[in-house]
C-alpha cells in the first residue's frame, strides 16, 4: 500500500526521520548502534565532535516543548552544528502565512535540517514532501501520530538494560489515544521483535483497532503487569478530564497509576519508563519515579545520544555510515 518510503534516499540511506513505520529492523539497530559511542561523549572533557561542522540546523517548534527542544539543541551543538531555535505559537501565528510559506522562507536562509514539532498529525511528512531535496527533516512530534526519536531513545534505554528484545514483555499504560509516543514505541518494539506488547487503559483512551498494530489490549493494569519486563507510563494531560474521557484524576490514579504494590506484579528486574514530564500522583507514585527500577532520567540522557545518531546519519550521509546499513538495507 505504501509505495516508497520518503525517509530513505535512492541508496536506501536515512534522509528524513519522520516515523518508525516504514523502517526495517536493521535500520533501527543501526541507529541504536550509532548512538552507542555518543552515549559516552558527555563523560569526555571535550564533549564536542566535529561531525556536522558548518551545518545549520533549525529547531522549528510549533508547539511548546522544553526537554525535547533542549536535547535536540544539545545534540546538534555536540555535533558542532549551528543551531537556530524558532518557536512559533500556532494560535498566535497570523492565519495569513501558511506552514509551507514559512518553510520556504527558512529554506532561503540555506539551512540543512529542520527539526519539527507540530500539534497536527502529518505535519512533518508534509514538510518533508515539500522542502528542497538537500534538506533533511526530523520529526520531533506531530499531533497524535509519531515521535520517533523518543521511541528510539526508549529502545536504546531498554537495550542497555535488557540486551535481547525478543523475549520481552512490554506494557504501555495510559492515554494511548492521544499519544504519539505510544504509537512510535509500538512500531519500534514490534519491528525489533519484542514478543509481547500490551497497552493498558480505559476504552476511552485506547484508539479503535489498535490491535492491528500488533498489541494486546488490557483494561486492568494489574492483569497487564503480570510478568512484565518493561513498564512504560504515559503522561496524562489534565484536559482529558474534560470531554468525558475520564471521571477524575483520583479514579485514574486508583486504576491506572503505578504504585509499588502494583509494580510487584511485574518481574523483579522490570524497569519503569516515562517520556516525561511526570505527573506525580496522577500516573506514577513518586517513590517509583525516584526508585531503583526507574530509568526515567537515563531516558533523558540517552535522548541526546540518539538524536546525535539520527542527525549524523541523516546529515552525514555522504561520508561515514556503519557498513552494515548498506549491506542490510
Amino acid at each position: 500500500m505504501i509505495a516508497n518510503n520518503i525517509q530513505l534516499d535512492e541508496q536506501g540511506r536515512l534522509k528524513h526521520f519522520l516515523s518508525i513505520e516504514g523502517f526495517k529492523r536493521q535500520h533501527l539497530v543501526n541507529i541504536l548502534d550509532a548512538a552507542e559511542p555518543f552515549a559516552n561523549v558527555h563523560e569526555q572533557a571535550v564533549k564536542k565532535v566535529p561531525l556536522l561542522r558548518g551545518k545549520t540546523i533549525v529547531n522549528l517548534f510549533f508547539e511548546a516543548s522544553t526537554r525535547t527542544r533542549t536535547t535536540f539543541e544539545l545534540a546538534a551543538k555536540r555535533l558542532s552544528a549551528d543551531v537556530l531555535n524558532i518557536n512559533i505559537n500556532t494560535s498566535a501565528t497570523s492565519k495569513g502565512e501558511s506552514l509551507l510559506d514559512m518553510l520556504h522562507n527558512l529554506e532561503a536562509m540555506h539551512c540543512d535540517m529542520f527539526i519539527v514539532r507540530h500539534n497536527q498529525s502529518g505535519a512533518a511528512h508534509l514538510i518533508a514532501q515539500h522542502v528542497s531535496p538537500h534538506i533533511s527533516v526530523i520529526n520531533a512530534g506531530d499531533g497524535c501520530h509519531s515521535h520517533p526519536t523518543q521511541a528510539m531513545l526508549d529502545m536504546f534505554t531498554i537495550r542497555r538494560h535488557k540486551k535481547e528484545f525478543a523475549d520481552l514483555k512490554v506494557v504501555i499504560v495510559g492515554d494511548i489515544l492521544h499519544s504519539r509516543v505510544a504509537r512510535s514505541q509500538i512500531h519500534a518494539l514490534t519491528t525489533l521483535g519484542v514478543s509481547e506488547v500490551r497497552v493498558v487503559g480505559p476504552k476511552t483512551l485506547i484508539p479503535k483497532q489498535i490491535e492491528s498494530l500488533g498489541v494486546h489490549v488490557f483494561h486492568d493494569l494489574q492483569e497487564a503487569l503480570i510478568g512484565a519486563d518493561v513498564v512504560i507510563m504515559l503522561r496524562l494531560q489534565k484536559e482529558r478530564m474534560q470531554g468525558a474521557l475520564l471521571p477524575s484524576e483520583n479514579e485514574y490514579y486508583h486504576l491506572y497509576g503505578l504504585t509499588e504494590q502494583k509494580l510487584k506484579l511485574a518481574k523483579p528486574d522490570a524497569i519503569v519508563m516515562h517520556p516525561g514530564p511526570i505527573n506525580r500522583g496522577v500516573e506514577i507514585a513518586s517513590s517509583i519515579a525516584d526508585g531503583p527500577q526507574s530509568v526515567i532520567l537515563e531516558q533523558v540522557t540517552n535522548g541526546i545520544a540518539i538524536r546525535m545518531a539520527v542527525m549524523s546519519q541523516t546529515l552525514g550521509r555522504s561520508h561515514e555510515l556503519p557498513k552494515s546499513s548498506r549491506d542490510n538495507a
Partner: protein
Amino acid sequence: MPDITQLTSNLSSNSSAISIINGRVIDPANQIDQQMDIHLYQGKIIALGNTPENFAAQQIIDASRQVVCPGLIDLRFRLRDRGYETKGSIASETRAAVAGGVTALCCPPDTDPIIDNAAMVKLIRLKSETEGVAKVYTLSALTQQLEGEKLSEMRKLKDAGCVGTTNALHPVKSTLVMRRALEYAASHDITVFIQAVDPWLSDGCAHEGAVSTRLGLAGIPVSAETIAISRDLQLIELTGAKAHFCQLSSAKAVQIIQQAQQDGLPVTADVTAHHLHLTDMDIGYFDSNCHVIPPLRTQRDQDALRQGLKSGIISNIVSDHQPHSSDAKLAPFAETKAGISAVETLLPLALKMIDIQGMNLSEVIERLTLQPARILNLAEGTLSIGADADICIFDPEAYWIVDREKLLSQGKNTPFHGWELKGKVTYTIKSGEVVFAIEKKL
C-alpha cells in the same frame, strides 16, 4: 425576469439542427440500447432512427463506436460561485461539468450568501445562463442561514426554482426543528436532501479504524452516519416527508436504508464515485486529496456500497464536486479542506462498475441520468422525442490518464491523478447546443 426568458429563447434559436449518426444509443428510460441515429432541432430531440422529412442537418456528428446517452445529471456539485470564487466559478466549473458529460447539475445552498432567499436563486440562474454552459439547479437551505433553528421560506424558494431543500453539511441538531422542517417540506411536496452526520460524533477527519489509529488522526465512527440516518428515518416515518440521503459511506448505512425502503418509506440514497473506488487505506501517509466528508471507509464498506448501487438501494452516483485552491490542500491532513474536484472523472469511475460489479452499460448510465432526474422530479435524463436535447457522447473503450493539470475545473484536487481510466467524453450537447467537443488528434 423578462431578460432571462429572452436569453433562453435566443439560445434555443441559435442552436442548429444536428444529426448524431452511427452511435450506440442508450436510453434506459425507453429501454433503448441499439445503433441508431438521433436528430435534434431547436434544442429538442425530434427523431430517433430515420431522418425526418424535410430535416436538413446543419451539423452531423459521426458517433461510430461511441455511446450516445442522455447528458449526465449530477446531484451534488459545488460551483463555488457565489462566495468562493478563488476556488471556482460558474464559468469554470460548468465547463468542467460538460467536459465530464454532465449537462445538468444541482448546487447545494452553502454558497455565500446562502441560498435561503429567492434573490439568490435568481442570481445563480441568471449567472448560469449568461456565464455557464450547463443547466444549473439549486437546492434551497432547509433552515435560515443553515443554522438549524428557523425554517427557510422553502415554498417561496421552490416557486423560485429550487428543486429540493437541504441543510447541506450542517446537521440540524435539534430533533424538533428537524421534525418541523420535514413536516413543512412534506406539506409542499419538497424533497429533503439529508447529509446524515451526527454532530457530536463527527469531530474528526478520517474513518475511525486501523488507519486513523495508525496515523493519529481523529476518527469519525460509522455510528456518526448511522445514528443520524436512524433518527431522520424515524422522523420521516412520523412526518411523511420525501427524503434523499446524500453520499452513503458505510455498509451499515446501506443496510439501514434497505430496511427503510422495504418498510415502504419514501427514501432514496446516493453514493459518490470516489467512495466506490477508494478506501481509508488510500490516505497512505496523509494524502490530503483523500480528505473527504463523509470519510473514506473500509474495503467492506466499499463492497457494500458497490452492491447497493447494483441492487438499486442506492439509486444514483454523484461527483460531489468540490474544487479547492491548491493552498486548501497544502496543510497537515486535519487542517486541509475536505473534498475532491471530481466531475471530470465521474463517468469513467462509474463505468468501472461494469468490470468490478458486473453491471451493464445501461444500468450505469441509468444511475447517472434517469435516476437523478427522477429524484429531482424532472422530465430529463432521457432521449425521448420532445425531450430537451441534453446528450453525452463518449468513447467507452478510450483509455486516458488523469492529469490534474489538464482538468478544466479550477480545482486540481484529485486523488485520481495518474490513474488510467476507460471511457472518454467526446461531445456534450446541452439544449441542442454543442457545449463540449474533444479536440481531434490528427
